Structures are given as C-alpha cells and as structure tokens.
C-alpha cells in the first residue's frame, strides 16, 4: 500500500522493548496493512511521561506532542507502545490516542493485559489490531461502523477478537487517498 522509501517508526516505551514477540508481531502486521517498512526506535523513557499523581495514570496527549517533535523527519508516522495506563482528562482511561491526520499515536497494553492473558498469541493479535487502529487515525480515519473493520471501536475484548486486522473497503480507499495526499505533499511519487 505504502512507499518503501518511507518508514513507520514503532517506539516501545519502558521495558516493552524486551517483549520481542509482541513487537515483531505488530511490525509484521503494520507492514502488511500499510506497506511501509518499520523501524523500531525507542524515543521516550517511561520516567519522562507525565504521571497524574491523583489518578496514577499517564496523560496521553502530551506524549503525542513530544513524539511528533522528536520523531525522525523521514518517518511517515510514529506509534508508541506502552504498558502504563493512559487517560485524557475527561475520560477514565483510553486504550490509545492518536493525532487525527497527524504524525503520532500511542497504544497502551495496560487494559488489554488486565482483561486478557498477556504473553499469549491472542494478546499479541489484539495489540496488533489496535496498533493498526491507532495508526489508521493518523491517516485521518474515524471509527468505522463495520464491526469487522479494524477501525471499529471495540468496547470489549470479544469485540476486538471479532474484528479483523485490516480495513474495510471504504476505510481502505480513504487510507490510500490519505497516503497519496501526504506523499504528494512531501514531493514523493506514488
């Protein structure tokens, strides 16, 4: 789908980089869906994340802002993955957050680990789907009503298991248009 000259950066936070199997699974599936090469590049330390001492959770929006700034300029998008619990101020928690049509997104394994069995194949499969989902937002995709589409917002683990790891026809067209637009604005042929 995408150009091989540009890459997507996957940035593990904290001791997540030790989970080689998970990261490899995520990289592989992202490559298959978006067509970009992926670079594994730790950009932020866990201690640099903004902890809310009352909520004992981490506010995800500032992390995205930092990622967008420090990410290498040749990277098309950057996806951070963390084990900590994320929130945005008005919500109790978020599974991840993305800059809609922007560069950065983040995914937390915290709620998935809480609800599923970490280290299993099913766990890795769920995380890979949600990684594609968050990256989809950076390609300007909104949530999709098609329960099988990876952009479908899932309220339960079983819903995540039911959805596929790829875009529905409509989302696929939209993401391709978005890729073409961004490559054209970068002066790269597609």
């Amino acid at each position, binding site marked *: 789908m995408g150009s091989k000259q540009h890459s997507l950066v996957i940035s593990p936070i904290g001791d997540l980089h030790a989970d080689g199997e998970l990261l490899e699974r995520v990289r592989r599936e992202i490559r298959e869906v978006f067509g970009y090469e992926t670079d594994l590049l730790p950009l932020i330390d866990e201690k640099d994340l903004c902890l809310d001492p009352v909520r004992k959770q981490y506010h995800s929006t500032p992390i995205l802002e930092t990622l967008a700034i420090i990410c290498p300029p040749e990277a098309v998008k950057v996806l951070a993955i963390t084990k900590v619990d994320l929130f*945005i*101020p008005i919500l*109790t928690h978020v599974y991840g*957050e993305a800059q809609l049509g922007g560069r950065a997104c983040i995914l937390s394994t915290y709620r998935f680990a809480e609800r599923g069995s970490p280290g299993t194949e099913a766990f890795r499969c769920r995380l890979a789907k949600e990684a594609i989902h968050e990256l989809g937002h950076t390609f300007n995709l*909104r*949530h999709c009503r098609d329960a099988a589409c990876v952009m479908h917002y899932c309220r339960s683990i079983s819903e995540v298991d039911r959805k596929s790891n790829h875009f529905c026809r409509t989302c696929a067209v939209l993401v391709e248009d978005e890729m073409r637009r961004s490559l054209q604005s970068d002066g790269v042929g597609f």
Partner: protein
Amino acid sequence: MNGAKILIVDDELIVRESLGGWLERDGHKVDKAASGEEALERFKNTRYDILLLDIKMEGMSGLEVLKKVKENDPDVSVVMITAYGSIPSAIEAMKNGAYEYLLKPFDPDELMVLIEKILRHQAETRETQFLREQYKERTRFESMIGQSRVIQEVFDLIERIAPADSTVLIKGETGTGKGLAARAIHTKSRRCQGPFVVVNCGAFPEHLLESELFGYQKGAFTDAKTTKKGRLELAHGGTLLLDEIGEISTRMQIDLLRVLEDHVFYRVGGTQPIEVDFRIIAATNKDLEKAIKQGTFREDLYYRLNVICFTVPPLRDRKEDIPLLADYFLRRFAQDTNKPMDQISREALDEMMLYDWPGNVRELANAVERGVVVGRGRRLLPKDLPIFRSEYASSPPGRTLREVEIAHLKSILEETQWNVSKSADILGIDRSTLYDKIKRYELRKRA
C-alpha cells in the same frame, strides 16, 4: 448511523480539546464553546444534535444554558457533564429536559453507548414525526376542505384544541362535516396513534346501543354466545366520537355520564370494572339547550360534554367553498367510477352557488356523485344535476320552507319507493334524521 453534530460547552480548554479530539476520532462533527454565552451564540446559527454541557462554569451556568437552549430547540439532546459534588444540579437539569448526565471523568465506552443511544432515539423520533405529519397532511386534505374565513376559523380552532385532552361538543346541521371535524381533532391530538371509534347514537335502539357501547359478557342475554368488547373499550387510548348524542335515551344518558366521570364501566352482564382512557367528542345537530328545557337531555351530561364547543358552519354560510368542494368530489368520483369527467361547467356551478344545500356538504357530494354517474363527456352540466330540477327548484313564490321541505322529502321517498336508507343518502342526511322528519311531518307511504 451517521456521525452527530456535537457542541462541547466547557470552560476548561483541556476538556474541550481532549473530548473534542476523542469524539472526532469517533466520526462526529464537533464544535466547542468556552462559555454559556458562546454556546448560545453558536446555537443561533447552527443546529446541533447533541450538546455536552458542563454544569459548573464561570458566568452563565450549565443549567441556565440548558433552559435557554431547550426554549429554542426542544429536540436537541443535552448531556450534562458534572463533578461528583454537583449531582443534585445534574438531577435538576434532568428535570429541566436534559437527556442524561455524566460524572467526570467518564468511561469512554459509556460515552459511546450514550451517543449511539441518543442518535438512535433521535432517528426514531424523526421517523415517528415524519409518519405522523404524513398521516396528518393526508387526513386534513381528504377530510375537511375549505378556504372560506368561517371554515378556516374552524380549522384554526381544531388546531388549537386538539392537543388538549378536553371533551369537545361539535354542533352543526346534518351533513356539515361534524364527524370529519372530530376525526381531524383526533388526528392532530397526541392520541392520533390510538383508535378513533365512532358510535352513531341515533342509529341504535336503546338496548342495542347499550351493548354496542359497553359490550357484553357471555351469557348476559340469550344471544350473547361470546363475550364482546364494546366501543368504549375499543376506544381505549384513542378518541370516542358519540355522534348524534341528542338522540340517546335518558337512561343511557345516566350510564354515559357515569363513564365520563369515572372512566370505568361494566360490560352488560359483567361484574369486572373496566378502566378506560379515551377522549370524548360528542356531535349533535339538535339544540341541546332546548332539549334540557324540555327535559329530554340531562343538564349535568350537557355540561360534562360542553367543555369545548364549536359549530361547523352550514354550506350556505360558506358558499365560496362550493367550487373547491365540488371540484374535489368531481375528481374523486370520476376516479372511483373510471369516468373521464374533470370539469364543472359554468352553468352547473352557477346553479350550485344559487342553491342553499339544506343537506350541506354531504348533499353536495351526493349531487356531484350523481352528476358524474349520469353525465357524459368531460364536463359536468346542469342537466346532470337532477336534484336542482326537482319540484322545489321551480316552486311558486309564497310557499313556506316547511312546505318545500315536505314536498322534497315526499318526492325523494316516492322516487326510492320509500327506501329510507337510499332516500337519506340522496338527501344527504342520516337515516335517523329522515325518520325524525317522517315522524314530524307525518309522512305516509301512498297506498
């Protein structure tokens, strides 16, 4: 389900931004306002589906915004956002029309479910409104037609009184459209999805009217092989039209009064009280005040029925509606009978305008129907309207109205060989009215 148009009203930038971003990722169109004043300003130019409104804000409070927004747009769904300490205010907001409240911080899954629920509810409401409007439009067109000031006043009155649940008494000569006015009230009322049940009180002898109205229990009388629901029961949730109310017996008046007071009755032969909820509309062509003085109609029942009262004007008082009505009937009957007739000649219309139509709109409808049946070609001609050529039309001056009426009744009864139903139909009056006239004028079949 498409995304919603949502306005977030919160004086905290971080809340507006984070919630806005989350909702945009969910596919909604989001606007943000930092104060109640800004929200109201935005509302002037934009229609929103959902308003996410913080209760506690600097300046205008969320509750004040809610009241003002609901005054202008009762359809918008308002979700109050509140901190734990402001729950009483949130409950107050619910009483003032807020759809729901969310406690800060809220679960994203709950927010999503709530938005989906609101959008589904709004879609269903719109669908119901659409069907209701469609139904109303059709009925209004088909039932009551007229552009004269007097009939427009009746339409306006119906529009005003329909939403209330008050009992209505409709007066008017026979054939003026009292039944149609009653149906229009029902259609425009909150009960329009419920049944519209008509009882012609003049059409039944007393004992039959009783079982017709109240129903009967199996074995209540010899012919009661099964239990039968009466019209009162069938009208539950809707409107009950008691047509020709002036015709009911004194005993039935007492029974009816009891039902009107308690909305509870018993089937004939039944012991189980049956509760009913309906709106009553009564119609009459009789002078009930006179009947009260004569002791044939109960005063207490009259006042129970006469909460709202209006008169449907006779056709002679709204002659400017004749061309419109005649044209409507012509097209309807031509279509029914598959005839190519689609015009009324100037001469035929002139004759219609000169005539006084004692049988009112019903008589006009019958006259046009006859004209369509006997006429040839595309135009309705005076010769197709035999009713205008009857005895009274050329009667010598000096004869009284009573004499003219008797002569006309006789001629129609003779013409139909004293078939009362057919004669009543031609005359545009009810059978019971015709019986009444036959009795009053002591008309006898010729030997």
